[in-house]
């Protein structure tokens, strides 16, 4: 296959970026999208240019490192996959493909398609955990958890922290990411003690990072490679309402 690629090139966080067009020949339909970018980079290298920087690691959709907006859709046109799981058979010979980084104030572009997502870590730092010390746990089977709760917790915990939700949200909100972690822990008995505090802390941290506000568009759910439901956002909203009305103060260090 032969493709025309328009790729966002930006030398550094401060630099002004722009789209550059590339013609790429010899693309096999069996290639993954990232194999195709590897091929392009090999070509750019031989032409004396600097390869396109893009992040990736496991290349099987679980590490959450890769992510780019492909033809206007975070992770590309196929549902429930990450960019690395997208294969070129989805495209046709002669296609034009626009490739852009996640765009959000809280995810500054480092270079080309690479963005900085440390804001996600800081949201987790504010309360996305159960406070337990190594070695202080009771026997694992001492707390039975109904299978249904465990399954719902798992569905929320499946988040890979890729940031597609933020990229797709018209408000650049990270509410799906935040709510997924809060929901995961709130379905479990171990997570109850800190539940309201966690909601208050995480929402505050989310806002402080400069993410926008959720206005229930549902775009996040559409692009989420793990199919995480916006229902978890409702659950977090309710916890936050409870937390505030019962006077829980946001705890900062």
């Amino acid at each position, binding site marked *: 296959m032969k493709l025309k690629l328009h790729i966002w090139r930006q030398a550094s966080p401060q630099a002004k970026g722009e789209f550059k067009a590339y013609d790429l020949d010899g693309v096999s339909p069996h290639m993954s999208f990232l194999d195709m970018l590897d091929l392009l980079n090999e070509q750019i290298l031989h032409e004396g240019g600097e390869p396109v920087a893009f992040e990736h690691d496991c290349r099987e959709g679980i590490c959450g490192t890769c992510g780019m907006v492909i033809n206007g859709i975070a992770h590309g046109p196929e549902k429930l996959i990450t960019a690395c799981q997208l294969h070129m058979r989805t495209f046709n010979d002669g296609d034009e493909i626009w490739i852009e980084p996640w765009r959000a104030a809280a995810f500054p572009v480092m270079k080309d398609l690479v963005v900085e997502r440390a804001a996600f870590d800081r949201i987790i730092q504010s309360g996305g955990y159960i406070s337990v010390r190594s070695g202080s746990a009771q026997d694992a089977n001492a707390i039975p958890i109904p299978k249904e709760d465990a399954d719902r917790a798992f569905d929320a915990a499946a988040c890979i922290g890729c940031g597609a939700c933020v990229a797709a949200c018209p408000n650049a909100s990270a509410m799906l990411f935040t709510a997924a972690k809060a929901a995961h822990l709130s379905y479990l008995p171990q997570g109850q003690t800190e539940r309201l505090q966690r909601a208050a802390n995480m929402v505050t941290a989310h806002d402080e990072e400069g993410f926008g506000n959720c206005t229930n*568009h549902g775009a996040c759910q559409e692009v989420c490679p793990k199919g995480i439901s916006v229902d978890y956002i409702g659950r977090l909203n309710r916890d936050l309402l409870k937390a505030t009305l019962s006077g829980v103060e946001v705890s900062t260090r």
Partner: protein
Amino acid sequence: MRRVLTLYRSSVGKKIMMAISGLILFGFIVAHMVGNLKAFQSPNGDGTHPLDTYAEFLREVGYPLVPEGGILWAFRLVLLAAVGVHIIAAIQLWSGARTARPSRYRKEDSQVFSYASRTMRWGGVIVAAFVVYHILHFTTGHVHPDFEYGRVYDNLVVGFQNPLVAGFYIVAVGALCLHLYHGLWSVFTTLGVQNRKIDRIRRPLAAGISVVLFVGFVSVPLAVLTRILTL
């Protein structure tokens, strides 16, 4: 109050305030629509119309326990406050979103979210503009060609006999109902009122209510235009 302010400071809190104020306004709209249907009642024997009587009732209810128009103004103040909160929160959320997404995508595929959700903001602006016009038109009469205080039914029929006015009204009500459709669906998430049953019915529920309201509202101008309702 301090807790409410704390709540309002967070993005989720602003949404919750929007939801609550939205629900108040929704209640008003339902009552308004039901009141409008009184236009279809036949005139009283004395040349007045039940719609006029209803308006009179709204002004006088509670008198002499409270001053005349007291209850009406109390309601108006609550509605005004709700409109204020709804609009201010909307503007703040909007500006927050603009700061959060300073540069847009070159190519945007918006099929991933619904038309109703995308038009919340512009739809809201249209509805707000309409409300101002609507008050100047039917409440204070400033932009009405032939306004007569207290003759609600006559004002209404005269007003809607102008197809342009009726057309604008219908479009605006359409925008309002689209706005309500997404708003009503979304209020469940915002307030975290969720379980499997609710999740199943919330979209048809929001759609059904919006359609009923739309039909109720547009029936009046349509009836005027088709001369079912006359002076």
